[in-house]
Structures are given as structure tokens and as C-alpha cells.
């Protein structure tokens, strides 16, 4: 491979890269440079991607400021709703939901002032 791109070959030991549309609303977008929609591709890794890992990844790669306004511990701050493919994450297993390619994850803040 001459272009320098890192190619990722799915194997039984590694999860395929996961492409997601991550959206922020209700004021949460303020913590992400005001950008509401983010098309992201999560890198290959041994463990399958779930919401728990996604949050860590968001904190490291997308969050611009004040992490405590978005994340509390290993979950989202109380008051932030999570929708997976337009459904309540409570129905999908919350942090344990295993992300699939082309999933849509939406974070909506219901707090006053975002």
C-alpha cells in the first residue's frame, strides 16, 4: 500500500471499523464547537464497540471543553438523553449496547441552558 492509508482487515480477533452518525442537541452541541452532526468512524479494536467505549472515545476525540458537563463517571451526565436509531437507549441496553455500522446515536441535553 503506497498511499500511507492504514488498512484494516477484519479478522475474527478484531471488530470491523464502525461508521456512525453522532448528533448533539438541546445545547450539548456547545461543547463540540457548536457542531450538531458528526460523521465518525471508530477505529478497529479488539473489543467490540459499545456505548461505554464510544463515550470514552467522544471524550478523547470530539469533546472540546468541560467534559464534566457531558460525562459523569462512565456514563452521560444526568439530564442528557441518548437515542440509538431513534429509540431510547434504555430499551437497547444503555451502555452495553453493541454498536453496529451505520448506527445513529443522538445526545440531547434536557438541562436548562444546555
Amino acid at each position, binding site marked *: 500500500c503506497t498511499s500511507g492509508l492504514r488498512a484494516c482487515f477484519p479478522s475474527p480477533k478484531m471488530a470491523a471499523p464502525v461508521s456512525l452518525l453522532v448528533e448533539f*442537541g438541546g445545547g450539548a452541541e456547545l461543547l463540540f464547537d457548536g457542531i450538531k452532526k458528526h460523521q465518525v468512524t471508530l477505529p478497529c479494536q479488539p473489543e467490540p464497540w459499545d456505548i461505554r467505549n464510544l463515550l470514552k472515545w467522544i471524550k478523547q476525540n470530539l469533546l472540546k471543553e468541560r467534559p464534566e458537563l457531558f460525562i459523569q463517571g462512565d456514563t452521560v451526565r444526568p439530564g442528557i438523553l441518548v437515542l440509538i436509531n431513534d429509540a*431510547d437507549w434504555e430499551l437497547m441496553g444503555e451502555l452495553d449496547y453493541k454498536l453496529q455500522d451505520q448506527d445513529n446515536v443522538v445526545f440531547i441535553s434536557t438541562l436548562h441552558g444546555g
Partner: protein
Amino acid sequence: GCAGRGRARHVGEGSAAAMCQAQEEYGGCDQPQRRPRVSCAQKCMKCKEASPVLVIRVGDAFCKACFREYFVHKFRAMLGKNRAIYPGEKVLLALSGGPASSSMLRQVQEGLSRETAKKLRFIPGIIYVDEGAVCGQSLAEREETLLQMETILQASGFPYHLAHLEEVFDLPSSILQRAPHSPAGPENSYKEAVEGFICQQRREEGGSPSLPERRIQEKLAELSMREAPGTEGLAAPGARLLGAVRTEQLVQLFGSVKTLTAKEELLQTLRNHLILHTARAQGYSKVMMGDSCTRLAVKLLTNLSLGRGASLAVDTGFSDDRHGDVVVVRPMREYSAKEIAFYNHLFGVPTVFTPALDTKALEKASIHRVIERFLFGLQAEFPSTVSTVYRTGEKLSTAPGDADPATGAAEPQHCLLCLCALDTNVEDGSALQAILVSEQLSQQRLPAASPAGRGCCPGAEEQRGCCMNTTAPGADARADFLPLLCYGCRLTIKDTTCLESLPLYVRSEAERRKCRAAMKLEIQEFLLEDEAVNPGES
């Protein structure tokens, strides 16, 4: 159990550690119902067929269609149950661009457009208040927000009013006076009113302009009224933002408020006055506010912390009639923030997010913030928290006011700013008396502690309020002002260092009441006693 919840957070702060410990301690005992696990495999609890898309309350899973029906029905049931809005009445919708008020607008649109006999029958208008100056937004940002809001406002088809918070400086002092109550008819007149309205509509269908045309006519009439003072310059987006003078005054006023809590309270008070003024000026007899159940639960606890317990019923109830002629109603009060957010997302309700005073503020920056965090944190673990607070609040009702012992008036005095009945009779043994005593005691020590030249009150006469201002005349004005306010508003004003920066209508009304009270005192002995005075009074 709690110990096995797997929340192995890396605990850094002491408070988080304490919380973790507390959780483990309570792990074994009886605890309030935690969130039950609901899975996608279950069916919608209503239709039992479709897959659920959200969980509301404690474990109730709804599919999209059933949720929509539930949501829409709740709005109409709320209005119908309270019978607060008569057909043909002009109702002003207070739109902030936030999720709850935007959802409310959508419900009004849905309700008015129905073909059935159950359709809503009032005449809506919308008001949007631009508070960008106070929230630190630049002119460009405010323009941008206004453009976005105008798109929504125009799309609604209802007449709308764009107001800027700066306009409070042009309000008349009559805003602070309780107008006579419009007499509400007896129960059955509501039904008659509806029937009469339907008959009239059927008759009108032949000759007069249809509803959309009537709306356009109203809008043109409104546009021609735009020359009224305080509303000029609304024509073009550029000229829309009133003179920099007013903006500067507003910024200065809020700059002189020391705490975020007081700023928040002052902002709400001024905003309400502005909305009320628009309602009165344009002939609206009702104002609809989009406070959700969640927001009201936070407000209830916050107000308790702010010493506003006496007015909880009007502050959080369905209808708020403190102004007399214009009644404020809260039709969204049974919707949780989650329900509203889901509805807006699933059904494309447009919202415009504007940063508020406390956006990105620190956790403990204001009482509002602290309470919100507390409630939301509890709610995450115990999903009946908010509704419990809300239901407790529902049980509150307004008690008839006590006679004011100071002036002997049969009717209670009302707070200058929030128009609630004054709750500041200093009775023996009351909490207020205890607070005042400890205030006086702590201020007696102050002249000794403060450096020379900064002590405001050398003598012992003017104890109350003297340490708040460094100039003697200021201390006088403040001491005169505070008795006109309820306890909660006093706290807000105490955090305001510069009383002179308050809008003129507040200061002139304060002056008027002070003079009136002084005059009444002078002629007290010549007044004939009212027959209605309690026999127990001397």
C-alpha cells in the same frame, strides 16, 4: 444489589467518594424503586403490537404512534380539564425557542387544525423575547438567533411579537399594579360559551373572511401598530436592535447583580413583566408558558430555597392570576423533559437553542443549578422523583390572604416586583423575625470591622440594610425599598448593588407606594374603620 452495580468509577473527588460509599451502605436495605430494566423485546404497553421506541415514567414503553397519540391527547385533556380557556379568547404563547415552548406551539397548531368538534378554539399569538444582551451574546449572534426564530414564527401563521428585553426600560409602572380581575363565569357557562361559539362559526362560514384571512388582517393591523413607542425599529433586522443605550443600561443592571441566583431571578421577573405588557397592550387575556413538569419540579424546590414558599401555588400551578386581568397558564406542566425532547426529535419540532445565563456555568454557581443537578441526579436512579415533587406541588393551593396588620387593610399588600401577596409580617417567633434579628446582630459588629471611610453607618439607628451600600443616601433608598418586597424578592434586591440601574417603572412605582403609605399613616386617625375589619383587631 448496589455493591454489584459495577460502577467502578475512578473516584477522584471527595464528594463523589462519599456518594459511592453511601450507595454501598444502602445497598442492602429497602430503597425506592430503581429503574426497572425494559428491553426492546417487549411490546408497546398500549397497542401491544409495535416495538417500543421510548420509556417514560417508570417502565412504560411506547411505540412511536401510541406515543404521539398520548402526547397530543394530554395537551387537549390538560386544557379541557381546567376549562381555563374560553372559545374565541386571545391567548399569547410565550415562545423561548426551547424544547418545551416549541412543543407547546406545535400542540396548539395541531389542536387548532383539527376538523372534529374537539378542536381547540382560541386565537393564538406568539411572543418571543430576545435576552441576548443579558446572556452575553454579541449583536451578530443575536441577529442570527432572531433570524432563525423568525423563520419559525412566520411558519406558524400566527401573529407574533418580537420583543427585546431592553424594552423593559420603557414599561409603564401600571405593570406593577394588579388590574381588576375579569369575572370568571360559573361552571356551566363554559359549555354554553363553546356551543355559542360553534353556532356563531357556522353562521359566519357563509359571509365573513375565513380564519387564515382573518389572521392576515390581524397581522397587518399589528404591523401598522408598530409605530407605538417601544416597538419602533422592529421593521428590519438591522434596525431591530434598539439603541445601544438601552442595551448598555440592561448590561449595567445585570452587571450590578452580584450572584447568578439573583440574576436568574431578576431576569425572570423582568421577562414576565415584558410579556404581561405585551399581553395587555395587544388584548390577550391569557398567556401560555411552556414550563414542563421537570422544570416546575426544579422551580418548586428552588423557590423553597429562595424563600418563596408562600407563592409556590401560583409559581408552579396550572394557572397564575396574580396580575388580575391576564392569567398565565402552564399547559405543559404534565410533560417531563424527556417526553418533550423525544416528541420534538421524532416529529421534527424546530427549536432554537440560545445560551442562557447559566450555560456552562459551574455546578454550584447558582441555587437553580444546584437544585437542577440534585433533581436530575436523583431522577436518573429513581425515575419517580420528578413526578413525586410535582404531585406534592399540585396539592398546594392558595390560601386566602391575611389582613395586613400594619395598615389595617382587609386585603394583603402585594410585592412590588413579583406581585405575590407579601409574606413578610414579622410575627413573634416567625422564621423571618429570627432572620432579621440575626441580621441586625451581625451588622452591629460591622462598623468596627470595616476599614475607616468605608463604613456606611456610624450610628446605631439605621441598622437594616445599611451595610449593603457604601453611601448613606443609597442606604436610605434601599431601606425604603425592601419593605415593598416579598422575602424572595428582597434577597434578589439585596444582591443588586446599584438600585439606580433598575428600570424607571420599578423605581417610580416604589416611590408612589412609599408616598401613599406615608400619606395613609398621616391621615390614619381620621380614616373611618371598614366594617369588614376582623373583630379581633384593636
